[in-house]
């Protein structure tokens, strides 16, 4: 920062714990998570299944509630879902009864203080940003998986949320489409300087996209290590330097997992 004023983090997590009561008894999904997410940071939560990373994202989205600890957006506690934290889901979650443009407009129409023309203009801007300006009349089922995820990205970006939450949005896509989207996301991130939190189990993806990679271990989900990734952008997934960093994270993960088994 240029001055010495302390910036409030975009998101603050303090000793967050979440338990579920299931058929198998009480399961602690995440335990004692504390984390600050800086404004304009691309943070990645990575870990094997069961590490509670999706639960953590749902907590941030306000779709679930913490048992202990607190989550602040700026200085406001997070209680309910809200337009300031939009979510991009694993499946695209586009509404099949609306066309592409109407899907992007859905969130915009819920945003007060805009005229219909401003909403249309904004929707079209974000559609062109993800390269789908010519598809606005198409129905979701007429698009490929990659295109649908792009529309979902445009839909989440259009209302200009303070934080964009992504829940493994690339996991259902083929490798080629995925590589292309890594490029698109980074370009949009650099252009729009948005705070993004991504959840993934793909370590290479985490290192490719994140400014910071938070490694979680399962049963219960805990933060194990935090890696600062200082590679220049745009990063390419096949970059050797990136690959060696990813290998480092993988090694760290397996050592934490073994620790868990032995203890």
């Amino acid at each position, binding site marked *: 920062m240029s001055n010495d004023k302390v910036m409030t983090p975009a998101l603050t997590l303090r000793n967050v714990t979440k338990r579920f009561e299931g058929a198998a008894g009480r399961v602690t999904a995440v335990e004692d998570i504390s984390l600050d997410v800086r404004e304009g940071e691309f943070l990645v939560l990575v870990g094997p299944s069961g590490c509670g990373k999706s639960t953590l994202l749902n907590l941030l*989205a306000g779709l679930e509630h913490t048992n202990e600890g607190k989550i602040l957006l700026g200085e406001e506690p997070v209680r309910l*879902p809200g337009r300031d934290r939009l*979510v991009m889901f694993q499946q695209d979650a586009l*509404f*099949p*009864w609306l066309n592409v443009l109407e899907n992007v407009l*859905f*969130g915009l129409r819920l945003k007060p203080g805009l005229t219909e023309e401003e909403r249309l203009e904004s929707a079209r801007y974000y559609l062109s940003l993800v390269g789908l300006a010519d598809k606005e009349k198409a129905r979701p089922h007429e698009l490929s998986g990659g295109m649908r995820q792009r529309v979902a990205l445009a839909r989440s970006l259009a209302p200009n949320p303070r934080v964009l939450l992504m829940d493994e949005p690339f996991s259902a896509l083929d490798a080629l489409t995925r590589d292309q989207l890594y490029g698109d996301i980074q370009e949009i991130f650099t252009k729009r300087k948005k705070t993004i939190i991504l959840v993934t189990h793909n370590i290479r993806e985490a290192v490719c996209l994140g400014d910071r990679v938070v490694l979680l271990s399962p049963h219960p989900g805990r933060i194990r290590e935090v890696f600062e990734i200082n590679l220049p952008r745009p990063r390419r997934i096949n970059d050797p330097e990136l690959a060696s960093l990813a290998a480092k994270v993988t090694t760290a993960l397996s050592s934490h997992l073994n620790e868990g088994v032995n203890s």
Partner: protein
Amino acid sequence: MKLPRPVIPTLLAIAFLGGWEWYVRAGHVNEVLVPAPSQIFKWFYESLTNGELLSATWVTMRRLMIGFAIGAALGVPLGALCARVRWVRDTLGVLALGLQTLPSVCWVPLALLWFGQEESAVLFVVVMGTVWAVVIAVQESVLSVQPLYLRAGMTMGSQGWHLWSRVIFPAALPGIVSGMKQGWAFAWRSLMAAEIFVVILTGFGLGSLLHAGRELLRMDQVMGVMAVVVGVGLLADIIFFAPLERWLRRSRGLER
């Protein structure tokens, strides 16, 4: 060489009607009990030209549409309420499930005692035939809306009435339309039952026409009305429900 698809059914229909006509004219059966197709067509033409058939059809269709509209208008919000509130589902939902299995003609005696031989009695029977099927269908389709759509809608700031009208209802619409179709079929059956069994003083519908045919020993009229009843049922499906369902499915990519 390949024949166009309608050729064989058309030929078979002609052969069937021709055989029937010949069989009756050759005197193999009592003409009073089994009229020839030509007699049925003659009745059809006459009752069409003297306005009898059209006015009866209109009376019946009006009852059907009003009853169905009331049934659907009650059934949709009640079904939504069943899906939304647990204790309503455990009470009204269970009741609806039970009453849906009750053949709607069973409502006729009750309707007559409560409303008399009036229009409202027929409407009551039709509404009872429709509403429970619609309640069940709406409840089931709302409960089976993908949670992902709800989560997506909620994170974009949709809640309450907006969530219902813009996410839940559109997502459940294909199921709701199927339920409406079923409700329509139930309404149609219950209306015919009511019109045949009961003399409704306020209007002479298709069922009454059929009943009158029996009393006058006009089997051409009886069979002709039966054919019209079948035709109306088919038409409702062909011009309304089938295209609506196809459009819903196609626009969502569930069918090519």
